[in-house]
């Protein structure tokens, strides 16, 4: 109890840091506050984000801005059908030393960065997509029988275009589940477009200040997040939400029963809790409430619910299923 002031300070620092990063990113990103906050939430929760939106909405700018604000190493991979796993994780190359002796030397791929932008991830083959699995979940890659750890913090920001589905390879459920959030990048409004044009077509362009200077600061903030406690009832609420996405569960909502093939995995519940903790801290509380869980539900569960054929044919979205579940579990 003696270091409670320390913890309180850490909490305050977390909140202040989060808000500052968000504000810095807002300088570059116009009208995407929800997406920015979602990306930051996933970043401080230690998860990865799948961004879905049409091209030209500033997804790459978002990632770059984040990397600048937190002063982390950033790399970008444009996924194409001919992209190979080695192009991502790296490969062993023959190197010659000063004595003329040759040996294999690991040449790290773009995955070895703190923030990786996997642009149009659904255009790569499943083989290449799966190359990210180990990196995303285990935070290391194995090349030639040797594990190469990835420096923390590590955030994968993948994007996919929902319109051009021709010649794409939709992400398998296992890989989708690895993403902490799936955020939908909406088209900006007219006012937002004015602001975008004002900022991007003039000589003076906004600059992003570095809020954090050390990756350890990010890790410290992540540690604070995980310390936020929650009551059993609140945790039960998160579990209920996840269970309600399963069509075979007795508490399943009508839409779940009708249109859902598979429900959310336990990773969904983890995402709900972690995101809830961050929302609680941002709200100035030291505990998670049901409202925090509910707030995180759409972003955390929408890519973890797999619709059946009937649901897809009817044009039902997973967001509708989640909204009904939230309504069912309200109060």
């Amino acid at each position: 109890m003696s270091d409670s002031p320390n913890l309180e300070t850490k909490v305050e620092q977390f909140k202040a840091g989060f808000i500052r990063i968000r504000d810095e990113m807002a300088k570059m990103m116009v009208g995407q506050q929800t997406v920015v906050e979602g990306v930051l939430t996933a970043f401080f929760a230690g998860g990865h984000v799948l961004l879905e939106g049409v091209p030209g909405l500033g997804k790459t700018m978002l990632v770059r801005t984040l990397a600048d604000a937190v002063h982390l190493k950033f790399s970008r991979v444009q996924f194409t059908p001919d992209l190979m796993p080695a192009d991502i994780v790296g490969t062993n190359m023959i190197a010659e030393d000063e004595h003329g002796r040759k040996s294999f030397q690991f040449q790290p791929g773009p995955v070895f960065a703190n923030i990786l932008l996997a642009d149009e991830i659904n255009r790569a083959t499943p083989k290449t997509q799966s190359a990210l699995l180990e990196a995303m979940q285990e935070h290391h890659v194995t090349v030639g029988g040797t594990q190469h750890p990835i420096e923390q913090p590590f955030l994968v920001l993948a994007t996919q275009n929902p319109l051009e589905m021709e010649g794409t390879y939709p992400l398998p459920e296992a890989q989708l589940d690895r993403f902490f959030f799936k955020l939908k990048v909406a088209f900006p409004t007219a006012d937002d477009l004015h602001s975008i044009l004002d900022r991007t077509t003039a000589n003076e362009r906004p600059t992003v200040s570095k809020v954090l200077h050390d990756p350890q600061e990010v890790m410290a903030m992540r540690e604070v997040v995980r310390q936020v406690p929650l009551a059993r009832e609140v945790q039960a609420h998160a579990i209920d939400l996840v269970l309600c996405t399963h069509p075979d569960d007795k508490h399943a909502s009508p839409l779940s029963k009708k249109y859902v093939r598979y429900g959310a995995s336990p990773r969904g519940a983890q995402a709900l809790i972690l995101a809830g903790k961050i929302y609680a801290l941002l709200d100035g509380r030291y505990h998670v409430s049901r409202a925090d869980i509910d707030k995180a539900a759409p972003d955390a569960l929408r890519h973890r619910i797999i619709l059946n054929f009937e649901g897809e044919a009817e044009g039902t979205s997973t967001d509708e299923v989640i909204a009904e579940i939230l309504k069912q579990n309200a109060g």
Partner: protein
Amino acid sequence: MALVKCALLAGAVLVAVGAVNRWLLGRMPLDPQMALIAAAAVPVLALLVAIAQRRALPQVAALLDQAGGTRDRFSTALAFSAEATPSEMQAMALRECVDFALRGNFSRLVRVHLPREAAWLLVPAVALAMLQWEAQTAASDRQAETSAAQAAVEETARKLEELARQTAKANEEAKTDDLKKIAEQLQRSAEQLRAKATNPEDAAKSALRELSALEQMIAELQKAPGASPEEMKELSKALAQNEATKESAKAMEAGDPAKAAEELEKAMQQLAEKKDERTEEQIQQALEQALKRLAEKKQLSEALQKLAQQMQRAQTEKGGSSGEAMRQLAQMLKQMPQGQQNKGGQQKAQTLQQLLAALQNMKYGEGDGKHGGDPKPGDAKTQGLVTMQSFAPGNQNGEPSPGDPSMPSGQPGSERDTGTTDTPFGKERNDPGKGAQAKQLTGRLGDGESLSQMLPSAGDASKSNRRYTELYEAMAPAAEDAAQQENIPLGSRFFIKRYFESIRPKE
């Protein structure tokens, strides 16, 4: 929902109890005292139920969080306070929750209020109120009916009480058990009449029944063995015509039938010794004439009827022994109870006669003008008279003439039976005043035999032990024959044919 169901169930039970009270037992669903007790019991029961269904603390915390928008602070505080060694962040959260709870005013969220489901009790309450209102209306109606019925029988009851007083007064002189019994019965009848008078329609019937019962009782008491004083007087006159039976006549006039019988036997013995058959014949003739006179005046008493029959039988069987009449008379006199002809007996007989007349007056009305010039039913001389009229022109018996077209034909389907007038005979109503003869029949209501006849009706609902197809096959030819032979109106023939087709069993 369970509470709603319980409330509805309780309400249904209340209404059922109220309905049973109202409809089966005829009482109010709730009397005021019971209603007060029930009203007082409701909060007590509610308190007990509330205590029994007391919510656990986590439930209360969840309710507070839900109602107060506290972001689960109460639930969290409760959970973290139960931790034996809370973490730093838990302790901070606990403090924050406590501060929040202290800052806010949450007492409004835990106000004591009636259960929401209590509103459902309104349904049975309204039903009970309606039952109560209906019962009160019915009770007031009953009260009014009772008052009307009491008023309807009050006059009769009052007269009965007056008769009871007069009878008791008469009994002070006569000193007989019968009059005392009648006086008591009259008083009792008056009381019963008042007590049973609840319906104005039944009140008159009840009064008539009571009067009839009293009348019957008095008539029974009048049927005492022996002759009436009038008859004794007439017989004594007959006996006084002859010297030999003068003593017996005196004894009869003195109201001493035993002595009269003794004197009569003495006279018979003397006449037998003298073999004076002529005197015996004279005495018999005098007696027969007396009986005849009495029979013309009124109906003979049972004793005299018996005497007349015995005299007639003795005359036909034994070839007209003149002494037989005296012997029979002596025998009758012996059988008469002593003292019947004394002053008390006469008083009793007179009182009974007056009572009977008074009861019949009450029963049939006392000349209220409705009868016009007809003899008053209340008149003692014409009591029990019923006027009947027969009005069948051309036939004194009132039977229809066979060829009379106004009479029913007795044949089904006859056009004569299709009535077009207001009489069943198809003709205008005959004027009974013209050519009718009034007959006056004497009789006493209640006497005589009644005729009852059992009329067979449709069969009961028991199952037939014969298959319908068999029954139809057996009965169809008979039905067709009947339809062809009977004089069925053309318009109805089609329907009858269709009916038989409709009841034909399906193949």
